[in-house]
């Protein structure tokens, strides 16, 4: 059983010892039910920390910000940053390490096990609760305990558990400096169950389905912005290169290819989402944040999940488990499938 006190104790300890620059954790949000990230450098402030089923964010995303910030500083503080990380979040850190985007000594991981549970899907919760405003969601054995104005309500896990948690392969940290909670694996018969509905459709019906999804996209790029793997300084879908320095020539800037137009249209949105999914193939660790933040509810996760499935079925590759392995698309095996090639 994960105790908040244990997390606070570890956080306080590491901050007091001065081993880390600051700590990234979860606090209660003033916006709604879901937790918000908090950045703590004063050990006295660890009491803000919370640990509930509303701690949905993948805080490893902020390691990317930290690296960027450090690159701009003249005399950076090189101490690591402490981060509270769930199983999926630690797999993201593993990919960042595998790609040498960060070094192991840049991060101090307080791993927290989800222990046979996970985080909630706020949309599922809202569908279920409607007017009764949930205020707090806690893990309890096989159930979620939800505090509302009308008292506590017990809800079976699978009813409001995020889909990605139901299909989670490692709901405990795979890499950590300290671990809070026990390594318990959730049972799951089919890690790709959520894809089945769409996969079973005919190509025409699949297109009708996705067309409608992509039609809604407003290209706020929240999916890209929230993703710890979308750390490129220069993204192919941006019209200008953000990595311009005084040495960048006018020609280089002028020749930046505009692959897609800036306005949201099915064709342009599709291009963006497909390229993003491909760039995440073998890298996405299914934290589901892209889908969670989407303001128009596009099932973005399914694109990434599809890539994850192909990587596993065809190439026996799983992301975020081994920092020493070559990445999916920078490696091959002689007997990779080629039945699709003429």
């Amino acid at each position, binding site marked *: 059983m994960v105790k908040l006190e244990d997390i606070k104790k570890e956080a306080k300890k590491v901050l007091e010892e001065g081993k880390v620059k600051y700590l990234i954790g979860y606090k209660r949000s003033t916006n709604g039910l879901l937790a918000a990230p908090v950045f703590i450098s004063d050990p006295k402030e660890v009491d803000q920390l919370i640990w509930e089923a509303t701690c949905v964010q993948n805080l490893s995303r902020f390691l990317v910000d930290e690296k960027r910030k450090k690159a701009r500083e003249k005399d950076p503080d090189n101490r690591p940053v402490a981060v509270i990380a769930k199983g999926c979040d630690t797999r993201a850190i593993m990919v960042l390490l595998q790609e040498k985007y960060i070094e192991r000594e840049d991060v101090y991981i307080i791993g927290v096990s989800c222990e046979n549970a996970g985080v909630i899907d706020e949309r599922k919760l809202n569908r279920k609760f409607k007017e009764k405003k949930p205020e707090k969601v806690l893990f309890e054995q096989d159930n979620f305990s939800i505090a509302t104005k009308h008292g506590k309500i017990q809800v079976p896990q699978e009813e409001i558990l995020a889909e990605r948690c139901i299909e989670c392969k490692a709901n405990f940290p795979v890499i950590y400096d300290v671990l809070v909670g026990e390594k318990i694996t959730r049972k799951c018969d089919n890690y790709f169950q959520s894809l089945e509905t769409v996969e079973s459709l005919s190509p025409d019906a699949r297109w009708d389905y996705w067309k409608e999804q992509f039609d809604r996209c407003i290209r706020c790029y929240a999916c890209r912005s929230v993703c710890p793997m979308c750390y490129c300084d220069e993204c192919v879908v941006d019209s200008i290169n953000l990595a311009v320095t005084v040495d960048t020539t006018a020609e280089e800037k002028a020749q930046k290819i505009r692959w897609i137009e800036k306005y949201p249209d099915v*064709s342009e949105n599709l291009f963006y989402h*497909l390229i993003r999914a491909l760039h995440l193939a073998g890298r996405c660790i299914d934290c589901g944040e892209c889908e969670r933040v989407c303001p128009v509810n596009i099932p973005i996760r399914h694109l990434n999940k599809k890539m994850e499935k*192909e990587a596993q079925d065809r190439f026996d590759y799983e992301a975020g488990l081994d920092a020493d392995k070559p990445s*999916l698309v920078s490696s091959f095996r002689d007997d*990779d499938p080629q039945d699709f090639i003429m």
Partner: protein
Amino acid sequence: MTMTATREEAFEPRIVAFLCKWCSSAGSDLAGVSRMQYPPNIVPITVMCSGSVSPLFVLSAFNKGADGVLVSGCHPGDCHYIKGNYYARRRILLLKELMEFVGIEPQRFKMSWVSAAEGAKFTGIIGEFVEELKPLGPQTRFKRSLAAQEA
């Protein structure tokens, strides 16, 4: 188009073909110099290696209205850069699966191994590709809409 012609007869698909300089592009040249006939529906783009074909190129071709896209490289073991076609094989498979997952017709995107000596194979692939595309009609799913703005 005459009023009596059916859509299939009138429709000539446009195929963008990314051809490896060391093999498939030479293969298409061989087909040419050997006076083999193949449909004029392809826009060949010579690339240094099938491994250098980014998914961006493929999606961009469809975005700009290609009815079909072909990526053609050297047979396994024959890559001029030793491993490029093996990388391509993985990447193209992922791309193909993803595009089909969102509903593009599977017939529209193909990969082939064509060596510099296989002019006849190249001719056959193109002919077959064109025939497969004709009944599908123009590719509209990934194509950028050039229609005037919506109300």
